[in-house]
């Protein structure tokens, strides 16, 4: 705990680089994305690759909360959408490097009723199969193709609906942007949903086949995966009716033992068992930062600002093509959503501004500052739990608005207020054994809010930040530093190598009902915490 306090003190002293106030991933957080799930960004991750400190991995997850068995079409990427990953490397909150992903769909057997089918080495019609409508005998003719064992060629016949994609790197913006096709002539196939053991008997192998090296040290992956996010959605959005009582004696407050256990959940993970569509790219840091090489963490140019965005073609007021507009999405496409830090839009931005936020550019985020300076969520915590909260304006909560220490090096130009997920590329990855779900708050310098890894518990971090843990005394101690939803880890083991996620859950998997939990109890006033740390003292 002393370490934690030290980190807090450092954060406060070094000022504005705060964890984003947020609770959950951005699943359907705004009206427009609630209506457009294919373009709905659920999570955005950016981190130095665990196994190669010279590279950064970006992951853009969309179309969340997929039921793994939801056939026959499952959840393909939308070919009308441009999926973008953006990097600002000169502190102006405008993208300098963008990676665009565009998808195409093939329907390979249009008469078949489902997108994926296969079994064993294929099944032919039996002897008692009736003749076809035209009288042709069917016995012995292939009916079910062999099980799907490959994304292309032999073993791929059962991929009736198959998608491939292109990757384009865009340097700069507007009409002068330089666009480079990164695919190098390769056909990149999407890893489909995990239909089940009959259709896809070795899904893990398919998952691996979906990892492509594009040259220049770039690797990509696109496909359906297990959703790495974890949260008690139900408890969180039932007006913070967090499950419990935890053994701490109070809902929403973890005991020291619970808090320090990054491998066990004491509340249901609402995302468990569900899948999400994921696009990942691993890129040498040299392609991202100014100067073209990895820089030490103390270098002002080492920190980049990142965000993901989705676009659809737009109908414009003017009918004539506007030659001044960029051919890239920012000109001829409308932005459906963007995401930097987790859940800014979900829990900070007011309902009447969520779409505007989704569709605005980070460089213009000053218009939304009022939401962060006096967040309603903090007042809800104050009202429901009775805990004191810092008085507005909550500058401690300005959500990663600038390039500032402790993420960015001292001397880094702060840039405009903007919701970017900032990543100091000079900070080496934390070894698995030392990694903490609480990231920077727990002294794990490679974790959120210095970038974000799939394992980072942004719910607990954000809950604590909103409550005031970064505002200095008296908010930087207990109970502020023990708040949590009781979900500390993803249900599936996340990968330690690119793309750092787990293969999709099988369609045969029965979504496990949440573990039985005691009914929520009225929260106690958190002013008295002796019983929390020493339950035996409770009366």
């Amino acid at each position: 705990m002393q370490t934690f306090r030290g980190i807090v003190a450092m954060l406060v002293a070094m000022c504005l680089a705060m964890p984003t106030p947020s609770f959950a991933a951005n699943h359907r957080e705004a009206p427009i994305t609630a209506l457009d799930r294919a373009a709905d960004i659920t999570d955005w991750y950016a981190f130095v690759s665990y196994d190669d400190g010279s590279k950064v991995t970006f992951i853009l997850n969309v179309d969340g909360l997929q039921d793994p068995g939801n056939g026959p079409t499952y959840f393909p990427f939308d070919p009308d959408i441009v999926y973008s990953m953006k990097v600002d490397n000169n502190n102006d909150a405008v993208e300098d490097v963008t990676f665009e992903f565009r998808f195409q769909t093939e329907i390979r057997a249009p008469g078949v009723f489902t997108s994926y089918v296969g079994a064993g080495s294929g099944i032919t019609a039996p002897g008692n199969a009736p003749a076809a409508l035209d009288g042709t005998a069917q016995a012995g003719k292939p009916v079910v193709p062999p099980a799907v064992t490959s994304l292309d060629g032999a073993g791929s016949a059962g991929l009736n609906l198959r998608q491939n994609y292109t990757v384009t790197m865009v340097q700069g913006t507007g009409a002068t942007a330089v666009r480079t096709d990164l695919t190098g002539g390769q056909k990149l196939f999407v890893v489909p949903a995990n239909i089940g053991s009959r259709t896809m008997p070795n899904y893990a192998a398919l998952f691996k086949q979906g990892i492509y090296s594009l040259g220049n040290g770039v690797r990509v992956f696109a496909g359906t995966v297990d959703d790495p996010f974890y949260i008690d959605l139900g408890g969180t959005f039932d007006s913070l009716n967090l499950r419990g009582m935890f053994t701490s004696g109070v809902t929403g407050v973890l005991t020291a033992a619970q808090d320090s256990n990054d491998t066990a959940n004491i509340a249901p993970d609402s995302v468990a068992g569900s899948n999400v569509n994921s696009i990942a790219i691993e890129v040498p840091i040299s392609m991202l930062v100014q100067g073209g090489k990895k820089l030490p963490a103390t270098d002002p140019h080492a920190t980049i600002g990142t965000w993901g965005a989705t676009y659809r073609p737009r109908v414009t007021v003017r009918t004539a093509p506007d030659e001044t507009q960029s051919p890239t999405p920012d000109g001829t496409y409308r932005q459906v959503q963007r995401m930097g830090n987790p859940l800014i839009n979900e829990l900070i931005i007011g309902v009447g501004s969520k779409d505007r936020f989704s569709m605005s550019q980070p460089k213009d985020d000053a218009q939304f500052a009022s939401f962060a300076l006096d967040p309603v969520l903090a007042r809800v915590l104050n009202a429901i739990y009775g805990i004191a909260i810092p008085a507005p304006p909550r500058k401690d909560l300005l959500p990663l608005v600038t390039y500032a220490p402790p993420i960015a090096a001292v001397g880094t130009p702060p840039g405009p207020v903007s919701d970017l997920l900032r990543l100091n590329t000079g900070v080496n990855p934390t070894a698995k054994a030392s990694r903490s779900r609480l990231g920077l708050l727990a002294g794990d310098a490679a974790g959120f809010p210095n970038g974000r890894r799939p394992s980072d518990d942004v719910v607990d971090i954000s809950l604590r930040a909103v409550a005031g843990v970064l505002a200095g005394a008296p908010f930087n101690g207990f109970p502020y530093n023990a708040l949590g939803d009781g979900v500390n880890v993803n249900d599936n083991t996340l990968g330690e190598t690119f793309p750092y996620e787990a293969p999709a859950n099988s369609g045969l998997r029965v979504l496990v009902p949440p573990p039985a939990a005691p009914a929520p109890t009225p929260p106690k006033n958190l002013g008295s915490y002796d019983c929390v740390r020493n339950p035996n003292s409770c009366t």
Partner: protein
Amino acid sequence: MKLQITTFVLFAGSALLGQTPSIVSKTAAEIRIDQAKTAIQQNPKKGDGYAALANALLRRELETSDPKYRREAEAAIEKALGTEPDHFEALKARTMILLRDHEYSKAQELARKLNKRTPDDVPTYGLVAEASVALGDYKEAEEAVQWMLDMRPGNLPAYLEGATLREMFGEVDGARDFLSQAYQRVRPEEAQERASILLRLSHLALLNNNPVSADRLVEQARKLFPAYPAATLQLARVRMAQKNYAEAADLFRLVNTIAPRTEYLFYLADALEKGGNVQEASGIFAEFEKKAIAESELADNANRELIRYYLDGSKNVPDGLRLAKREASVRHDSYTLDLYAWGLYASGRKAEAKTQSDRAVTVGLRDPDVLAHAKIIASN
């Protein structure tokens, strides 16, 4: 034709008195008025019912062109704001009233505030756009409409506002496309709204020198929503384009009977004059001038027509220029700038006229009068 017109007068008149021949059924606005009144009875201390009533009354005004509904709407808004001072829908309705009262700057200011308060409310962007178009702030209007199109692709208000802008930008076919899209999105029971779109399409057909199509579209509108004063007005314009001045005059006279407005007198007199009935035209012009001068200082005025009256034929160039200059100091839309340029030209200030005319046409508007003025000014 006289007989037809007379029949139409009787029909329209009886409809306005609630004695529509054949099937009498309530319009969409009337149904909404009833619903709002019920809501008020159920929750008299809530602003929602009053705001809904205001909106329904404003809709009724569109159906009838009767401004009394606007004043009733204003009263309903007062009640809504009396119970809930920040009631969003009531404030939006107030913005609509400001627009109809030609209080464009006030409307723009209020619409901007509402937009800032709730940026995700798509119709509010439409209010910003309407006020901005009227004031000539086309860039702001375009940005607002683009937000509408981006936020909710395919939404009806965006297509309607977008059509206005496309027309202003000279993209008549594009405007027609937007209106066609809009028409398909209006629910069938919203007869007046569908009819109003047909009238706008008719207007665009005239801009494309296609009076036959314009005529057909008006007839469709009249069938869809009988006794629609706006349809009568558009039909009169079509007749003018067809050089059927006698019938146009009848129609202008009719619409001025149903929903009197000073500018209609100008159009009526113009039709009479062009039709050779100079004596009657002269009398109507005189009546028009008197009324237009009386309301000239009001926000809702007939200054544009009065300026035209003064400038065309050089009846009173100094007053025409004075009025045009004053109008241009308030708003800088293409129509206003064109009249200002025309006044300057008529006064012999040709260089200044060229400057203002260029400003008027640079937006792209393809209005025949504006273009004709610009051509004359440019050639001198």
